[in-house]
């Protein structure tokens, strides 16, 4: 990982190959290739001129602080979902949704301790999108990887495929939601960079705001493709890493001092 911002050049790596994709394009139901094709046509639609990403400075991330997690839960109404009656705490902990989680790591070599928030890494080549049978898992033109919960059938193949365990399945009826974040039983969901805020023109995510409010400022969100953006300039100055860079997924979330 050098000090560079290895951004996509539009060439899509393919798992199965061009032929299949071409055959697929001909037979595929409308809506699936839409995302790829519709980058710029619509006046207000999201555009592939931007790619949203996040940079996390693990040095600034503080152990036992869960401000980002709490903010995410509140922003997306995850905290409105409660433990089903009669369920054990262990089961609930294994089943409750977590879009972002705090992880503490120790380097096996140096013994260094690192704290970081872990969430959907918004890959350029997301395995979840590749495996989704209905095309519900998709990557928006602006690089946000998310689930269209109108076509998700709840097969959970994406959860099996995700190298970051970033996705959660809703295991129960949800009775209370926020207007901005519909969610309900039987679908898979994950961090979507607070897409409702982004679309509304607000250029921060809830976790970032919360982290800044705590005074840590470990999270920077922004447009990776815009050289003027804060995130792009930090990426130029500092060494950053992708988690599981060996998989060559070109993640949109990067970590410094990892």
């Amino acid at each position: 990982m050098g000090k560079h911002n290895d951004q996509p050049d539009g060439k899509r790596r393919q798992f199965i190959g061009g032929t299949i994709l071409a055959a697929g394009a001909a037979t595929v139901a409308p809506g699936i290739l839409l995302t790829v094709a519709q980058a710029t046509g619509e006046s207000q639609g999201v555009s592939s001129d931007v790619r949203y990403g996040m940079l996390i400075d693990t040095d600034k991330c503080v152990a036992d602080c869960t401000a980002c997690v709490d903010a995410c839960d509140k922003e997306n109404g995850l905290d409105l979902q409660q433990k089903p009656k009669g369920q054990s705490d262990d089961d609930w902990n294994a089943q409750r949704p977590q879009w972002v989680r705090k992880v503490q790591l120790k380097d096996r070599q140096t013994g260094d301790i690192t704290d970081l928030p872990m969430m959907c890494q918004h890959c350029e080549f997301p395995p979840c999108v590749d495996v989704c049978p209905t095309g519900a898992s998709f990557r928006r033109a602006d690089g946000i990887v998310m689930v269209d919960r109108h076509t998700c059938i709840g097969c959970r193949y994406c959860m099996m495929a995700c190298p970051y365990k970033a996705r959660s399945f809703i295991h129960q009826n949800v009775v209370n939601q926020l207007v901005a974040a519909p969610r309900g039983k039987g679908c898979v969901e994950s961090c979507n960079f607070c897409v409702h805020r982004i679309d509304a023109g607000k250029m921060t995510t809830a976790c970032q705001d919360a982290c800044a409010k705590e005074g840590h400022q470990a999270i920077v969100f922004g447009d990776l493709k815009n050289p003027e953006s804060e995130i792009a300039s930090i990426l130029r100055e500092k060494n950053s890493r992708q988690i599981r860079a060996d998989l060559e997924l070109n993640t949109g979330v990067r970590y410094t001092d990892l």
Partner: protein
Amino acid sequence: MLSSTGIRRFAGVLMAGAFTFLTTGVLGDSAVTPGSKAAGMEACVAPTAEMRRNHMDYLKHDRIKTVRKGIRDIRNSLADCVDCHAAKNGSGGYAQIDSEGQFCDKCHNYMAVDLACFQCHRKTPGEEKLSQSALDGGNVDHRLGLLRDKDAPAALAADELVQLQAIVQED
């Protein structure tokens, strides 16, 4: 349980003709519920007759725009439907829009249409819609729906109270 939209669709087409007749006959002039914002307004997002007939297609068409392309100011926003059509209940809050006798249930109940939408979508007007606030140019997200409405009584449902407290704490 394994509902087939195709079959429902077909039944719907059959009933569409009978339906225009029924709405005027059985349900009275309007399905709009008293106590909702819509009750005091002139028109829906499209001509009423058109809405009656085509709202499902509009909704399903527009939601692709929002989810896939990030276009938020769609004409047929489900959150907007709820905003206008949810009725106040006696205790100052809102009745759930899909509960018995409420707007989205009235005709559906009659036609045996089982809406899945509100398994995920909020059934009452909630915080101010963000796209709205963005269009107005301000970042007034997380304002409560009730406070927005000047002539509405300042009463809160339990969950709204929780939200309000959260906001107050934040500020």
